[in-house]
């Protein structure tokens, strides 16, 4: 417009950009620098070139952790989105049709609040509670449901199931948000579209696959990105729930927890930074791929 706009723009953006430069760019540069050192976390350090990365390449625990990250990255968003879509659909269009208008199931307003509740419990609390749910003796909630003669499931102490248990908690914690998100998306789909399709004799299943799903596509893509980020960063649950620090026998080891263990417990901050560098590039690749594949034109305001 007419008056000088640049004073405003610069004035409004100088603080956030400064914060970003110092805390994000600066922090990353420092992480890259540390990844080339043998720093223990205390005192001085020497530059050792790419030794940390060579060590990483030969470290079986790193590969196990990476594999677990990839499992979670694939399985968790699919399961969460599938369940959330199903229940959002139930809440919005699963009920009776009255006067041609499809409605949600009975009490859908109450459900909406209930589904959102896990989102309100802090991850720390959720992890502590599910530690009890999956308790490996009779004091565990699930095992406690069975009679004395029952030989208890080990859950988190069983290396075959430990990661799945943590995955279940991740889904449980995330799903409510996506039910609400998809419900909002479905709410914005015009009733007359459903009406017309119902008049043409479409079943609920047809309605879902032919109308709801295509019209929700944008929202689904957003959900996918958010879930992907959550999948990369499942540190909190592993930290609190896993038996024996990412165990048993590294069965729940993930990259973010490896960073933490190496930096703050094993006094290998240089090595931990190297893992951080790898995680950085992995996340960046995921983001770039997702943005490219989904081609969501978010940049045009």
């Amino acid at each position, binding site marked *: 417009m007419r008056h000088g706009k640049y004073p405003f723009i610069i004035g409004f953006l100088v603080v*956030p950009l400064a914060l*970003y430069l110092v805390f994000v760019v600066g922090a990353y540069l420092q*992480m890259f620098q540390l990844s080339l050192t043998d720093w223990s976390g205390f005192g001085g350090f020497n530059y050792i070139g790419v030794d940390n990365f060579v060590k990483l390449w030969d470290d079986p625990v790193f590969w196990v952790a990476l594999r677990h990250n990839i499992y979670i990255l694939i399985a968790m968003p699919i399961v969460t989105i599938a369940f959330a879509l199903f229940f959002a659909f139930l809440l919005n269009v699963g009920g009776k049709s009255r006067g041609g208008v499809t409605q949600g199931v009975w009490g859908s307003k109450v459900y909406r609040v*209930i589904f959102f509740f896990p989102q309100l419990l802090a991850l720390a609390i959720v992890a502590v509670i599910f530690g*009890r749910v999956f308790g490996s003796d009779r004091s565990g909630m699930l095992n406690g449901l069975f009679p004395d003669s029952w030989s208890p499931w080990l859950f988190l102490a069983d290396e075959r199931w430990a990661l799945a248990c943590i995955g279940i908690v991740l889904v449980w914690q995330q799903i409510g948000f996506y039910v609400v998100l998809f419900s909002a998306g479905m709410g914005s789909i015009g009733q007359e579209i459903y009406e017309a399709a119902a008049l043409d004799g479409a079943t609920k299943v047809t309605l879902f696959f032919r109308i709801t799903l295509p019209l929700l596509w944008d929202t689904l893509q957003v959900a996918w990105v958010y879930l992907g980020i959550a999948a990369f960063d499942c540190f909190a649950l592993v930290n609190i729930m896993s038996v024996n620090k990412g165990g048993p026998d590294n069965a729940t080891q993930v990259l973010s927890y490896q960073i933490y263990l190496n930096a703050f417990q094993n006094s290998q901050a240089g090595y931990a930074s190297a893992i951080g560098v790898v995680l950085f590039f992995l996340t960046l690749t995921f983001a770039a791929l997702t943005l490219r594949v989904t081609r*969501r034109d978010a940049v045009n305001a």
Partner: protein
Amino acid sequence: MAARQDDGVLTVGRSRIGTIFANTGGVLFALVMIFPVYWVLNTAFKPRDEVMSFEPYFLPAHPTLDNFVSAIKAENFLSGLVNGLIITGLAVAAALVVGFLAALAIARFNFYGRRAIIMIILCVQLVPLLALLIPLFLMLQGWELTNSLIGVALVYLVLLLPYTVWTLRGFIAGIPKELDEAAMIDGCTRPQVFWRIILPLTGPGLVATAVYGFIQAWNEFIIINTLNSPAKQNLMAWLLQNQTERGTAWGPLMAGAIITSLPVVIFFLLIQRNIATGLTAGAVKG
């Protein structure tokens, strides 16, 4: 399959079985979602012997508030509560002020580098937190801001900003530019337009963003656990500390968990109606 006429009301075929199925599914799912919450409440109000018993008590036989009393009296609980409020308050207030201005700049002006800034905001949201923990610790140590509430608030501000800017930008973009222009023709200066027109109209957005930011900062524990000693931590860190140290004192722990969750639940109930709008505003106004 076929739509049929039924008392003049159109229904979708097999609707009766479908409805039963849908309702059962909904109820079952709701039970799974709510069970842990129920368990927290149940445990918190039970006396110690009922908590420890293998006999399942589905409701406390002798409800008591003892657990709440011992939680409040526990070491570092009250300080954790106060610390959490201070840190969260500082971080959210700062994020709203800084974020609102930045969102204004991005939503209302076209300038060189605007796209780059939007990309930066999106990318920061993707940053895995753990990767930054070591350098952040070093940085704050250099400024003598470890073991300080200000240091943690500063880090939380940085973490909250991308979401704040992105969401508020969505809200501001939804306000017609014609309003600005009309006001300016009537003699408003640009700062007056921001202050008198855009700020009030962004009100709901500010509330939604503040609540979301509050939840994020209030529930955070990894950073505060790493940067600060127990006396300068929040209630989340307190919970974890007590979970590992005392192992089986579930009653007080769950009572503490309830007190910890209370502010978030209250905020949520206050703005419950608008939460979906608030959460999706940034996403939908692409």
